[in-house]
C-alpha cells in the first residue's frame, strides 16, 4: 500500500502546483486512565489506553481543478488506531485507504484478549461518463487468546486465536439513458493458523440491471442474479447459493407508484442434507401528496422449501407519514407476517410476527424539537407455546439557543416478556441520555454528557458513562481541551462483574485553514 501511495502521489505531482485550499484539525493529546474491576465486562472500555496520541481530523485539501485529499486519523500512536485516507477527483477517480485496530478483552485482569486489524483499499474510476470501474481489497487479521463462551471465571481455559482473511473485489457499472448494468466479483480467502481444517475460500458474483421500458419510461424493469459459494480448502466441502430476482416500478398518474419484486433463491451443498429454496413475491402501492403526506401498502408472499419441509408466509405492510402543520410530522409503520408449516415440520413450528412503529416529531424552532417514539414487536410460536412481547417507548428533546448553547436529552424504556410452556422471562431496560453544550463565552465552552443504562431480567445490571469537557480557544485557531470521563458497570447478582474507570484526556488542537 505504501508503494502504491507513493506512485499515486508521483502521478499527481504536476497538479500540486495549482492553487488550493484546505482545512483540518491537528491535535496532540495525553490520556490518563485509572481503572478498577473486571476489564472484560464493559465493552466501551476495551479500546482506551493510557498514553499520548496524535490526531488529524477532518483534513481536506482541494486543488482548484477539483482534485481533493482527505484524511482522518484518530490517536494514531495509541493502540486503538483508526485511520482513513482518501484522494479523488469528481467524476474521474477516487482512492480510499483505511486502517483500523481494536481489541476485545475476555478476562478479569485483561490478560486474555484478541486484537483485530482491518486494512482496506478501494479504487474507483470513470474511464467514460457512462462507465464506472472499481476494485479493492480488505485484510482482516485477528490474533490473541479468548476464553470459552459463557465462562467468565478468572481461571477459565483460554483458546488461542490466529486467523486472517483477505478479500478482493472488482466491479463495473454501466449507465446509459436511464438504464443500468452492474456487476461485481468478490473472492475471500480465510486462513486459520490454529486449525487448517477451517481454511476456506468464498466467492460471489452478482449482476444487477435496471432499464426503463422504451416509449413507456414510466415503467422501470429491474432484475439480477447472484451466485455465492463457500468451499473448505481441505475437505472440498461446498455450499452454494444462487439467487435470481426481478421486478418493476411503475410511476402512475396522480402521484401513485406501483412496485413489484420477486426473488428466487436456491441454496445447496455437495452433501445431500442441505438444499433449500426460497421464493418471494412482493408488491407495494404508494401515493404521495407532495410535501404533505405519503401512504404505502404492500403484500409479501414467501415460500421456504427444503424438499422435506415447506413453510409459507403471508405478510402485510403499511406505512405512512403526514405533516399536518408546520414543524409537525407523524410517521407510522405496521407489519404482520404469518408463517405456516405446510409440509413436514420445523423446530419452532408456525410463527406469527407483528410490528407497529409510530413516531411523532414536532419542531417549533424557537422552543426546540421533541420526538416521541413507540414500537411494539410480538412473536408467537403456537406449537412451541412461546410468545415474545417487546415494547419500546422513547422520547427525546433538543434545543439550541444562541445566547446559551444546546441541550439534548432522551429516555428509552424497553420491556419484554418471554413465555413458553415451561418458564417465563421478563426484562426491563432503561436508558437515559443527555448532552449539554454551552455557547462560547470569552473563548471558553463546556459540555456535559450522561448515559445511564439499567437492565433487569435474570440479571440485574447497571452501567453509566459520564463526560465533562471544556475547551479554551486562544491565539488564532488553537484550542486547549480537557475531558473527564467516568465509566461504571455493576452486576448486582455476580460479585466479580464490576468495573469503574476514571479517564482524563487533555489535548492541544490547532485548526488550520488555508
Amino acid at each position: 500500500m505504501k508503494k502504491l501511495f507513493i506512485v499515486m502521489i508521483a502521478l499527481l505531482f504536476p497538479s500540486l502546483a495549482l492553487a488550493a485550499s484546505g482545512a483540518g484539525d491537528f491535535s496532540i493529546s495525553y490520556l490518563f486512565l485509572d481503572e478498577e474491576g473486571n476489564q472484560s465486562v464493559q465493552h466501551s472500555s476495551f479500546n482506551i489506553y493510557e498514553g499520548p496520541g496524535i490526531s488529524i481530523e477532518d483534513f481536506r485539501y482541494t486543488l482548484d481543478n477539483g482534485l481533493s485529499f482527505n484524511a482522518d486519523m484518530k490517536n494514531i500512536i495509541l493502540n486503538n488506531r483508526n485511520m482513513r485516507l482518501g484522494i479523488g477527483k469528481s467524476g474521474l477517480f477516487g482512492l480510499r485507504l483505511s486502517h483500523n485496530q481494536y481489541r476485545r478483552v475476555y478476562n478479569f485482569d485483561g490478560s486474555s484478549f484478541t486484537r483485530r486489524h482491518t486494512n482496506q483499499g478501494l479504487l474507483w474510476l470513470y474511464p467514460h461518463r457512462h462507465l464506472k470501474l472499481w476494485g479493492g481489497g480488505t485484510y482482516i487479521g485477528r490474533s490473541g487468546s479468548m476464553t470459552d463462551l459463557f465462562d467468565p471465571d478468572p481461571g477459565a481455559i483460554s483458546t488461542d486465536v490466529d486467523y486472517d482473511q483477505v478479500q478482493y473485489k472488482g466491479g463495473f457499472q454501466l449507465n446509459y439513458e436511464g438504464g443500468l448494468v452492474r456487476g461485481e466479483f468478490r473472492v475471500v480467502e480465510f486462513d486459520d493458523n490454529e486449525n487448517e481444517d477451517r481454511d476456506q475460500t468464498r466467492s460471489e458474483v452478482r449482476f444487477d440491471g435496471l432499464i426503463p421500458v422504451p416509449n413507456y419510461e414510466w415503467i422501470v424493469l429491474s432484475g439480477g442474479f447472484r451466485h455465492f459459494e463457500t468451499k473448505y480448502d481441505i475437505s472440498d466441502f461446498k455450499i452454494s447459493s444462487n439467487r435470481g430476482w426481478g421486478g418493476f416500478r411503475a410511476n402512475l398518474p396522480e402521484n401513485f407508484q406501483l412496485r413489484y419484486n420477486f426473488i428466487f433463491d436456491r441454496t445447496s451443498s455437495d452433501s445431500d442434507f442441505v438444499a433449500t429454496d426460497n421464493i418471494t413475491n412482493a408488491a407495494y402501492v404508494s401515493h404521495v401528496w407532495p410535501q404533505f403526506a405519503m401512504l404505502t401498502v404492500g403484500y409479501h408472499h414467501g415460500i421456504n422449501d427444503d424438499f422435506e419441509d415447506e413453510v409459507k408466509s403471508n405478510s402485510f405492510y403499511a406505512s405512512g407519514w403526514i405533516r399536518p402543520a408546520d414543524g409537525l410530522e407523524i410517521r407510522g409503520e405496521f407489519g404482520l407476517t404469518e408463517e405456516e408449516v405446510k409440509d413436514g415440520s420445523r423446530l419452532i413450528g408456525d410463527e406469527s410476527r407483528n410490528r407497529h412503529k409510530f413516531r411523532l416529531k414536532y419542531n417549533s424552532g424557537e422552543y426546540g424539537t421533541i420526538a416521541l417514539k413507540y414500537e411494539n414487536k410480538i412473536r408467537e410460536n403456537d406449537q412451541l407455546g412461546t410468545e415474545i412481547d417487546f415494547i419500546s417507548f422513547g422520547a427525546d428533546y433538543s434545543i439550541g439557543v444562541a445566547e446559551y448553547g444546546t441541550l439534548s436529552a432522551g429516555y428509552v424504556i424497553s420491556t419484554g416478556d418471554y413465555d413458553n410452556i415451561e418458564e417465563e422471562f421478563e426484562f426491563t431496560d432503561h436508558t437515559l441520555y443527555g448532552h449539554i453544550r454551552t455557547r462560547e463565552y470569552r473563548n471558553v465552552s463546556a459540555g456535559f454528557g450522561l448515559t445511564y443504562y439499567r437492565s433487569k431480567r435474570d440479571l440485574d445490571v447497571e452501567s453509566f458513562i459520564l463526560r465533562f469537557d471544556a475547551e479554551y480557544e486562544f491565539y488564532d485557531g488553537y484550542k486547549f481541551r480537557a475531558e473527564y470521563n467516568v465509566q461504571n458497570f455493576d452486576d448486582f447478582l455476580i460479585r466479580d462483574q464490576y468495573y469503574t474507570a476514571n479517564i482524563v484526556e487533555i489535548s492541544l488542537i490547532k485548526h488550520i485553514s488555508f
Partner: protein
Amino acid sequence: MGHKLLSKYLTGAAVLIPLLIFSISYGQYGNKDDILEQTETCLLCHDGQAETLRGTPHQLLSGDDLSSPIMMGCTGCHTDWEDHVDDPAAENIVAGPELGSLEQSQQCAGCHQTPHQAAMATTDPHGRGGYNCSSCHTVHGNQNRMLVKDEQENYCLECHNVVEAQFKARSAHPLQSGNIGCTDCHQFGGIADQLHAQGLNWTCQECHPLIAGPHIYEHPVTYEYLVEGSGCTECHNPHGSANDRLLKQPGDGTCRQCHMVPPGHRIAHAGLGSRHACIDCHSEIHGSNSNELFLDPDLGIKNVINCYASGCHSLGS
C-alpha cells in the same frame, strides 16, 4: 506468514496501479460546449454556487479543466430552466429539495441509478417510509463522503434512538470508540435484501469468518442466514445487549428460546448439585465438523470425571 501477506498486497497493488494510470490517461471525454455555456449563464447571477460545489462529486464543469468525463452543469439537476432565464422566478426552475419524494428520487435517478437508488424505490424501509434523497443528503456546500448531511455516525442515531441506547449497553459493537460505523454493516446498496445491502451472510462474515461456516453439521438457526436474512440475529442483538457476547437472553435463556431442557438433563445437569450451562458441553454451537449435537470435541478429556466416571455416558456415545 509475512511473505504470504506481502504477496497478497502486491497482487492487489498490481491490479490497482494500472487502473489508476488508466483513469488518469484516459479521462478526457466528449464535447461539453452546451453545458459550459449554460453553466456560465447561470453563474452570471448565481456566482457563488460554483464554489459550494468545488471538490464535491458535483463540481461544475469549467473551461479551465476538462479532465472529468462526467459533465456536471447546473441544468443537469435544475431542469426546466428555459423560462427561468427570462423570468428568474423560483417557480420557473426545478429545485430538488422542494420536490415531492417520488419526483425527487426520479430527478436524482437521472444519474444515480445505483442499487441504493433502486432499493430506496423498492425494498428499503427508508424509501417505503417516505424519506427522500434530501432527507439524508445535501448537494451544495457539502464536503462529506457520499454527501450525507453529517458524516458523524450519530447522524443515523438521530432517528434511531433506540439503537443508540443499545450501543451503550454492556456489550456492544465498538461504535463508541469509532472502530466501526453504521455503514460498515448497513450499506443500503442491495436491491433484493430487505435491510442489509450485502445480506446478513456477508455482513457478519466480513468480520467473523471463524464462526461463519459452513460446517458439516450446521445448527439450523445459524444456517438460515444464507437464505432468509435471519440466522445470527436470532440469538445476538448486533447493536448491543445487557448480556455478554451480544446475546438476546442471558446464559441458557438463549438456548431456551427454542429448546426445552430434555428430561434426562433436568436430573443430571440442571439440579443444584451439578448445574451445567448448555454451552459447557454443546460448545460448537455455531456448527460442528465432528458432531451433530455440537458437542465439544474435547469433552472426553475436559469432563472425563463428570461425564464418564459417573456412569451416565460411555466413551464414544
